[in-house]
């Protein structure tokens, strides 16, 4: 099977279309970042409290909001997430101004507000840890256990928590359900100290404003260092203009990806930044493959125009570019569709970024080289040669091996 035998497309001839396409998306993204949604920082960068809750039944958003109001929490964000059948809700308070203690307090307020049916002096079994259960059993000693009490109760506590989390998906509806998992005497003893709320806390994120600022700075630095690393490596391996072209390309990809997050008002979390840095690496891969071929062809076809050489190189590597992009896209799509809620933003960034990264190595990086060349010949300087000179040494090594 073969998709692109002897492809011969005049990519450079279409550079104005490409430019228009890129401009539309970059400007739309920039516009959204500046005037519409801004950069939708997630809690990692903005600071605040997020509590992810899974309910036993379909949650009632209005009831949750009313409960939060009663608890005195203002500007609470209540949002369904994950699959509808999962009954999962995100409750968030963003307090960029206030300090860490206030954030911690918000978490307690949110959880307490949800525990509407909480009896006095009883713990919530749906949110109890193994440690809490074990401590309780050791105190109650329902099995009249002897010297091995510690181990036996630890095992019982673990079994109960595992059953709750792995079999029941986190929320128990009645204590009787536990009879399948633990000793009946142990389960019976739970009656005195525990009650069942109708929800389980799945995940809590509290990020203080100080850390938020620090993480923002780090994310920015990481991106800048990453770009600088590429620039230097490519300048050393090729010629500085190749490095510049690659970095401009990658910057274009980053801009459009972040723009897409802004346009769709999707939150940018730490993992999204990780995805963007991966994209910088990936998009660069594509660009390098094309550049490598240009360098090789520059040596073989000394008489031809650079634009022809670049076109030829893109066409020669087109099959590989599309295949790799397609396969990587396939895996990322699997991640997006099946990878779960936590990775949603991450895989979304990769889905967008792989499309853009592949496009840009053909539509942005290569035309920059040609544009630079044209500019140089207008200035009356000699055409690009340094790269081919560098390559010729290595080319001989390859030949010698044959």
């Amino acid at each position: 099977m073969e998709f692109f035998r002897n492809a011969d497309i005049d990519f450079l001839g279409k550079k104005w279309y490409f430019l228009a396409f890129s401009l539309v998306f970059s400007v739309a993204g920039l516009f959204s970042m500046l005037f519409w949604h801004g950069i939708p920082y997630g809690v990692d960068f903005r600071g605040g409290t997020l509590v992810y809750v899974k309910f036993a039944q379909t949650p009632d958003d209005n009831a949750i909001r009313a409960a939060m109001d009663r608890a005195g929490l203002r500007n609470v964000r209540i949002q369904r997430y994950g699959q509808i059948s999962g009954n999962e809700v995100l409750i968030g308070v963003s307090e960029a101004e206030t300090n860490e203690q206030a954030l911690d307090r918000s978490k307690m307020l949110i959880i307490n507000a949800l525990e509407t049916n909480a009896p006095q002096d009883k713990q919530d079994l749906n949110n109890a840890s193994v440690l809490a259960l074990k401590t309780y059993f050791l105190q109650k000693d329902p099995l009249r256990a002897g010297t091995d009490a510690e181990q036996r109760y630890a095992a019982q506590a673990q079994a109960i928590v595992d059953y709750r989390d792995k079999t029941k998906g986190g929320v128990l509806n009645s204590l009787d359900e536990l009879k399948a998992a633990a000793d009946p005497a142990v389960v019976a003893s739970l009656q005195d100290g525990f009650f069942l709320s109708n929800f389980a806390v799945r995940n809590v994120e509290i990020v203080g404003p100080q850390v938020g600022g620090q993480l923002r700075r780090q994310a920015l630095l990481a991106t800048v260092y990453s770009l600088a690393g590429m620039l230097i490596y490519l300048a050393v391996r090729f010629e500085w203009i190749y490095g510049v072209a690659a970095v401009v390309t990658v910057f274009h990809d980053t801009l459009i990806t972040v723009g897409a997050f802004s346009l769709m008002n999707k939150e940018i979390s730490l993992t999204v930044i990780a995805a963007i840095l991966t994209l910088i690496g990936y998009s660069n891969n594509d660009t390098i493959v094309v550049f490598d071929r240009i360098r090789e062809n520059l040596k073989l076809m000394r008489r031809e125009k650079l634009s022809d050489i670049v076109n030829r190189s893109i066409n020669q590597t087109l099959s590989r570019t599309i295949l790799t992009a397609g396969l990587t896209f396939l895996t990322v799509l699997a991640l997006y569709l099946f990878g779960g809620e936590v990775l949603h933003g991450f895989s979304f960034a990769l889905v967008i970024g792989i499309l853009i990264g592949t496009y840009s190595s053909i539509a942005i990086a290569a035309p920059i080289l040609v544009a630079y060349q044209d500019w140089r010949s207008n200035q009356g300087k000699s055409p690009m040669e340094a790269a081919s000179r560098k390559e010729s040494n290595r080319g001989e090594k390859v030949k010698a091996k044959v």
Partner: protein
Amino acid sequence: MKKTLGWKIGVIVATLVVFLFGIIGIPDSWSGKGLLAALGNRIHLGLDLKGGTHLILQVQVNDAVTVDSDNAIERLKTDLRAHKITYAEITKPDPVNQPEKIVLKGVPPESRSDLLSIVQDRLPEYALTSGADNSWTVAMKPQSLSELKKRAVTQAIETIRNRIDQLGVSEPIIEEHGLGQYQILVQLPGIDDPARVKDIMQSTAMLEIRQSMGGPYASEQAALQQNNGVLPPDTMLMPGHSIGATTGDSGPAWYLISRASAVTGRDLRSAEPSRDENGQPSVSFTLTGEGGRRFGAFTGSHVGDNLAVVLDNKVQEVAVIKEQIHDTGVINGRFGEQEAKDLAMVLRSGALPAGIKYLEERTVGPSLGTDSIRAGVTAAVIGMLAVLIFMLVYYHAAGINADVALILNLIILLGFLGFSGATLTLPGIAGVILTVGMGVDSNVLIFERIREELRSGKTPPSAVEQGFGHAWITIVDTHVTTIVSAIILFIFGTGPVRGFAVTLSFGLGANLFTAVFVSRVIFDWVLNRKERGEALSIG
């Protein structure tokens, strides 16, 4: 011309065996369950997959500096008095932001050399500079200052580790975090309700026994009034609760307390929860030999006076010294049962050298972790299968070649994780999936090149030779740039993101071996078995 492949195949098989061992070790049983358990033992899951709490703490290192410079002021005062040097005032101009800076005003010019030698001999960590109007600045030397701050972080880590160990949390991670901002990362697997642990970690537990010179007073103003507006030398006011028999109630109160402490938490040998004579929970402690001698001397010379038990700069208890006490004591106060236990524990573990505050807290409930593993593994298997099948369809027999290389790539990656003890996080699983996608790129590059060479009329062996030769340069370039991104991510990232950087760079490293070396050996092996001129199956 046939190639000898014996040693190369040997290398590949050995790699396979070694990394398989890395993944599962030697399992107890070869059943599905036994293998799964073995896998669980070797591959460490991150908090986001197994559930637990992740905390970032800020050590308020200036606390430690304040303590040190307070001591320096006391020493200076004593020595100035001993050398009969007069001075107008000794203060810290900016105690919050620059606690390391002490200003001494109104020293007569003729005392200059004495002052110099005092600072040099008695306060070697401080430097003396002269200012206007006979004033002097005594500031901690920058190097000593940064050492003191670093030491505070190290000590805080040790203290917190002691406390967490006593709580029975398994496999906690407590380490310095970030790039020199005096932060600590604490990871507590299996703890998804961290409130109590947080309280325990945060309590500074700075215990001191000092002399109480007066009180309780209802307020600071009241205390000042009673002392005619001026506090006696070497005393200070401290908040607490009035617990004296005279008042009976437990409202807030202020005490006049000596600045010097008779003994501190450092002199403790042990502390245990106990009950006082009324059956209320309390904490009893024993002092070390040296601490006991000092305490004995202090109580012996102050029979009839009051002593104050001060915890974290709050007066916990005031009691009359009835007789000389040597090495034991009891702390009373309105404790609950659990509070007394926790206090004894934090006293045993030592005081924190500086206060801490929480900057970040992430808790992952175990049910979310279980779901995440399921989702991540599903996505990985589906993505992997899609790629494997596609390669077979598109490249025919050469696809097998790529598939073998990919599977081996995965085995090496997981084996690396097993050997290195690096943790697998959810983004780490994503890194594994991405490795599959990006790893196959090397195969595609090589295969496409071989096809090109075949089309231009080369024989299969020379097309393979050329294909690998040309693609190799490109593969190195692409891998280096991606690994550069991954390394930067590792340096700047935390927790889950680091896990991603780890799997991505391990995966790409392994890919250099599998896509280039292993795949080449398979090609050569296939070519060896073919007749001269027979076609190569590459789609």
